[in-house]
């Protein structure tokens, strides 16, 4: 009962958020809807006993990525629609009818792909095993430190690289401003 309710709420949150990200015409709102959707995904993780994942999802996405996004939006001039000195739109429109038509086409094609790929999953797994819920943190820790140590290290190096890279790239350089 509780799990069902949680699942329903999270699913609705996720889907509504995702759909609103598509629907919203305001970048700032889209970002907030994305946050809602990510919260929903965390809830969905929680429903299937992925406690560590849920926590990570919340911390990394809600605490990190979305904040970053919001900063980026604000640093690039908020959501106002103005023209820059080249006569280009500073903050371009969030797509129009034409782009949405194209997007719908692409979405249909990719939907077909996903459906095609997913159908065997259902055909081959008629009676699925449902693993019991158990705390995962310890086991994930063990796995990360043993089996997946290489990937773990590489990802840490990658994060470091990303950190430095981001800082270097976005560093303001005066000489460009003419």
């Amino acid at each position, binding site marked *: 009962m509780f799990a069902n309710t949680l699942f329903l709420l999270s699913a609705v949150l996720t889907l509504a958020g995702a759909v609103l990200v598509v629907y919203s015409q305001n970048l700032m709102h889209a970002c907030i809807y994305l946050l809602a959707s990510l919260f929903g995904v965390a809830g969905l993780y929680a429903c299937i006993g992925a406690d560590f994942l849920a926590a990570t999802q919340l911390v990394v996405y809600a605490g990190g990525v979305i904040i970053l996004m919001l900063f980026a939006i604000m640093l690039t001039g908020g959501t106002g629609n103005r023209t820059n000195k080249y006569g280009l739109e500073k903050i371009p429109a969030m797509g129009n009818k034409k782009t949405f038509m194209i997007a719908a086409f*692409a979405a249909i*094609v990719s939907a077909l*792909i996903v459906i*095609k*790929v997913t159908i065997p999953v259902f055909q081959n797994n008629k009676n699925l095993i449902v693993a019991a819920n158990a705390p995962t943190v310890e086991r994930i820790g063990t796995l990360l430190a043993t089996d997946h140590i290489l990937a773990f290290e590489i990802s840490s190096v990658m994060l470091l690289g990303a950190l430095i890279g981001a800082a270097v790239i976005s560093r303001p350089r005066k000489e460009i401003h003419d």
Partner: protein
Amino acid sequence: MDYTISTVAPIVLLPFFAFVINVFLAKRVPLAAVAISTLAIFGSFICAFRIFLDFQNVYAVGYHIHKVFTWFDLSAGEHLFKVNMGIYIDNMTAVMLLMVTAVATLIHVFSTWYMHDDERFARFFVYMSLFTSAMLGLVLSDNLLSMFIFWELMGFCSYSLIGFYYEKEGAGNASMKAFMTTRVGDVFFLLGILICWMIVGSTTFVDIYAAIGAGKFAGSFNVFGIALPIATVAAFSVFMGTMGKSAQFPIHVWLPDAMFGPTPCSALIHAATMVAAGVYLSLRMFPLMEAGHLLTFIAYIGAITAFGAATIALIQTDIKAVLAYSTISQLGYMVIGIGVGSYNASFMHLITHAVFKACLFLSAGSVIHSIHCQEMPQMGGLRKKLPYTFFAMLLCCFAIAGVPFFSGFVSKDRILGDALVLALENPSYWGVAILGFGGALLTAFYMFRMLFLTFFGEPRDHHIYDHAHEEHIGWNSNVPLLILSVFTLGLFYSGSFTGQGEINLFGSKNEWFSTLIHKPEASHLEHFAHYEHEDFGATDTRDKVELPKAQYDENHGMDEHHAHWVHQIHHLGAILSILIAFSGIFMAYLMYIKKSVNPGWWAETFAGWRRALQNKYYFDDLYINKIIQKGLLPFNDMLAKFDSQYYDKYVVDGTAVLNRWAFNVARWFDNNIIDSGMVDGTGASVRAVNLILRTIQSGKIQLYFIVLIVVLGSYILTLRF
């Protein structure tokens, strides 16, 4: 007396025929229409009074008269399905009929004075007749379906009467709000009816009681894969009907706005009868509420309503608004009564409240009519100008505040006493008891605040005061008020003055109310199973058995020891109520007569809360601005836009466009490929490939992505797993 078509049906049919006749008469002969309406309701009163005497003098508790006739019959072949209508009269019905007809008669009489300047004088009576017939039909109903029919008819009358002054912009909003808000409850009520109909096979109370006794309501109910116990769902659905009609939190928002209607209709519909119909329904379905284990919920809804509405009433300046919120609050007490199992007292409060609230509204109407103003800060000192109105209102304020010897004390105190008893037995009810007593304090305060502001002190607006008409005694202006105000004495409802058995004037035998009305205990429900349908016709086919007349049971069916304890607690509660009532009155006195306590100080100290009160706890804002304006309407616009501009335009008309493309392609094929394509195909193809490749290498990342998807898609889609 015999219960046949000719003796019972006139109660409903007299006002109904008055309505039908007046629809045609109202325009042409307004005065005749008014007379017909008023006489019709008086006729109903006579019939109802006969039934009441019969029940009061002859029958036992638990005796009921139930007669049915076929409304329509769908039986065909082996399918049997029949819908019956009928009348169900027991003690509660008899009392209720008497109250409704009596109050309605007095209000009709008063309206002949109050409305006679109005250009739609007769039309008002058309609606009033329809309303009273619907209300009486509801009271006489033997089943939930006909109850629902009359219930909605009353909703319609209420809609029309709130929108009576339809030129005003607010009237339209208020009437629509009232109809829609109660409709929310009604939808649930209809669901409850459907559940009962499915489980019981009919909707008559008798069959439902029997089914509850036989335990047919066990089992569960699946919606969206969630299993809910069926009795709880049914009870909750029916109770939602009560919440809508009786303006319980959180769908109480319509009642204050309903005051847009003329004052006599506010008195009849939005104070005395229609709003009480919700409570009446819950009392009728009490066994279901009990079977659904919903009583705690009900008690808390009632307590929140009683207290919350009382707090809002504290700062209202419009005299009708104060009365409106006090109505919500008092209805909350009745609902508390249901929730704490205080069946008898809850029903008694319904009756006493109907009397004193009708009187209060009529008095307010009298004030408004004489000074043409509703704002209390502009009144003051009217005591000298309107002595009779003042007297009536004073008695009513005593009654509603719960001063001993008045009816409000008798009934409300029993409810609160029972709440206290229950709280001592079951700690989860403490909230109910505390909110109930708190609400009582506030009630005493705001009612006397209203009284003092209106009638005492110096006139604050001399222009209004000087133009006020002097009041003279008149059969249709203030005699109805005085009659009603006499019946605010507790003595008419209980042989003792206080309802506690402390001071017995006529001996305990005269506790007619407690004797007549008994809670339908679960163990008694079985006897409804051995019941046969009697035809409602020209003759009475009942077995004329003489049942022993009901006797007053001092212990209310409890054992000696427990009853003693309960009595003790009741005494405690009574003392507490009296203290609370007097302290509320005293506080009002200090603030508004003696002026030794400055109300402004309180307003400033609790400024935040005051703002919340002024906005009625933001419910209107939430429902109208947030949910409807921001949620529902944009959603509808989106759907409509989807329907006409996307679905219709692209999908449906798109097929036509496809068709056009198809023949364009065919024509193109014919012209270009067959005609000229074959000739200079080579050069053109090279140019075409060139063009395509150049377009693809545009540097636009989204295009790359689409190409990626398409290629990947065509690859994967051709794979066979």
